[in-house]
């Protein structure tokens, strides 16, 4: 068995002649909260539908729990809970009966229904027809349904869609707790980097169907560390001098930037400049936010 819970190879989906998902190699390991990030229309939902066997890849393979999805779909899905795009429900039934209809297919004890209702705090409203629910309540019901079968892998496509700030916080805390308490692995998609940043330990960024980044969230954060921008007289000579003295500086013919952040290093660098009689006009910190990085990576069209 491979160490990956979810592994896709060259996963590709063409719709109407256009590759909506192209050569995606997803890698999710046990206990991960994997943030699947991308602007609208990037192909997140399409990828997730292929992971759940709802749509067939044009080519490429999906392995979940080490088994090929195309061969062992039912065995795999027994251990997967999902919420795709918007929550599914039967409007004329109550939340309880909706869960019961799914429970009968999963063959779990009836007590699970009360448990999951408790988890998403719908217990009080459980006996009302779902068509009278607010969007946020439907979203909670969708999450409850995903949790019903005590899944080992949870696939949540934009789970905080339509929730108010309190609801978002609540769901986020719930997601963060799951791997520790129940050993669940989670794939959660979003177009909000800040949201993923707050819960995921690994991130995959997809745009226009292509995976452009996949690594620990830590690595993404490092790219956001700040740099020091220097405005000096004769910047090119200053750059040479600083390099000769062992400072890590960049000169792009317009701006001189240094990759240091601690106060002491900045102070000695400025002292060196002054000693060599460069006029120092400005020393300013330029901190690239995660959002900036995300926008740069996705070609600037990502919404935040």
């Amino acid at each position, binding site marked *: 068995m491979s160490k990956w819970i979810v592994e896709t190879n060259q996963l590709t989906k063409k719709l109407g002649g256009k590759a909506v998902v192209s050569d995606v190699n997803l890698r999710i390991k046990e206990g991960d909260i994997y943030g699947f990030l991308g602007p609208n229309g990037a192909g997140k939902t399409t990828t997730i539908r292929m992971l759940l*066997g709802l749509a067939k890849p044009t080519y490429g393979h999906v392995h979940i729990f080490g088994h090929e999805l195309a061969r062992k779909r*039912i065995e795999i899905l027994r251990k997967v809970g999902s919420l*795709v795009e918007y929550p*599914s429900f*039967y409007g004329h039934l109550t939340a309880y009966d909706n869960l019961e209809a*799914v429970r009968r*297919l999963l063959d779990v004890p009836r007590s699970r229904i009360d448990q999951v209702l408790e988890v998403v705090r719908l217990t009080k409203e459980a006996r009302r027809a779902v068509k009278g629910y607010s969007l946020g309540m439907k979203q909670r019901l969708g999450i409850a349904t995903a949790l019903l079968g005590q899944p080992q892998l949870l696939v949540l496509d934009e789970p905080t869609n339509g929730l108010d700030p309190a609801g978002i916080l609540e769901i986020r805390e719930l997601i963060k707790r799951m791997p520790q308490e129940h050993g669940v692995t989670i794939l959660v998609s979003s177009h909000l980097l800040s949201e993923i940043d707050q819960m995921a330990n690994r991130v995959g960024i997809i745009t226009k169907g292509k995976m452009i980044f996949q690594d620990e969230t830590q690595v993404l954060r490092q790219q956001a560390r700040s740099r020091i921008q220097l405005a000096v007289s004769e910047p090119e000579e200053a750059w040479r001098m600083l390099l000769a003295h062992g400072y890590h500086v960049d000169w792009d013919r317009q701006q001189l930037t240094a990759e240091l952040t601690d106060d002491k290093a900045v102070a000695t660098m400025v002292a060196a400049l002054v000693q060599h009689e460069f006029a120092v006009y400005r020393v300013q910190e330029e901190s690239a936010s995660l959002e900036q990085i995300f926008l740069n990576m996705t070609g600037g069209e990502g919404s935040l």
Partner: protein
Amino acid sequence: MMRMFRSEWMKLRRTVIWALAVISPLLAGVTGFLSAGDYENGQEGVWQIALGIMGLLHAMLFLPLLTGVFAALLCRFEHTGGGWKQLLALPVSRSSVYAVKFIYIMLLLAITQLLFLAALLATGLLLGFAEPIPWRMLLVSALGGWLACLPLAALQLAVSVAWSSFAAPLAVNVIFTIPNILIINSAQYGPYYPWAQPLLAMVPRDEMGFGAFNLSPETLLGVILVSFVVFLLGGWGYFIRKAV
């Protein structure tokens, strides 16, 4: 499969679908009762006449229409609430989902047929038909009508699964049901027309010795079974590949 069946039951109970099964037999009962003048007392074959009168509207119009309505309603729950993607992402085989939907259509139609039979018996008993009840003929008629719905049910299920709209498959069904009135007169096309098959199978043939009614029961049954298999396989083949 059994679990699928019980899950589907959760969605179906307490819906209008059950009321629909009652309407046509009720109307047939009223028709039969109002035609009291047509049955002279002591007349021979009075049950057969009653079956002809009551079965005409029921089998020509309501049975094909109801088949379409049942198919559309069973798919409607899934289309409107995004049920397909939830259902098919659960550990169930697509074949059993499709099979259970089909079985429910046929089950509802079976209830309709039983109620029709009950309406016919009630009419006869209330009007005091002198003849003993011809059980064999009545049961063959009801069963025949039910079997003749198989191809149409398979066809309508395929259409209802394919189109996410509720009205479109129904409209198609209505459009194809109306010409029944003409098509049953054609010995050539009648038996091959899925919307006409229930009537041909249900109404006693010597009652109406014209057009497609002269067909032998074996031929009709053969046509029905073959077209049923073709439509069912077609719909099933589409459904197991469908992207949701």
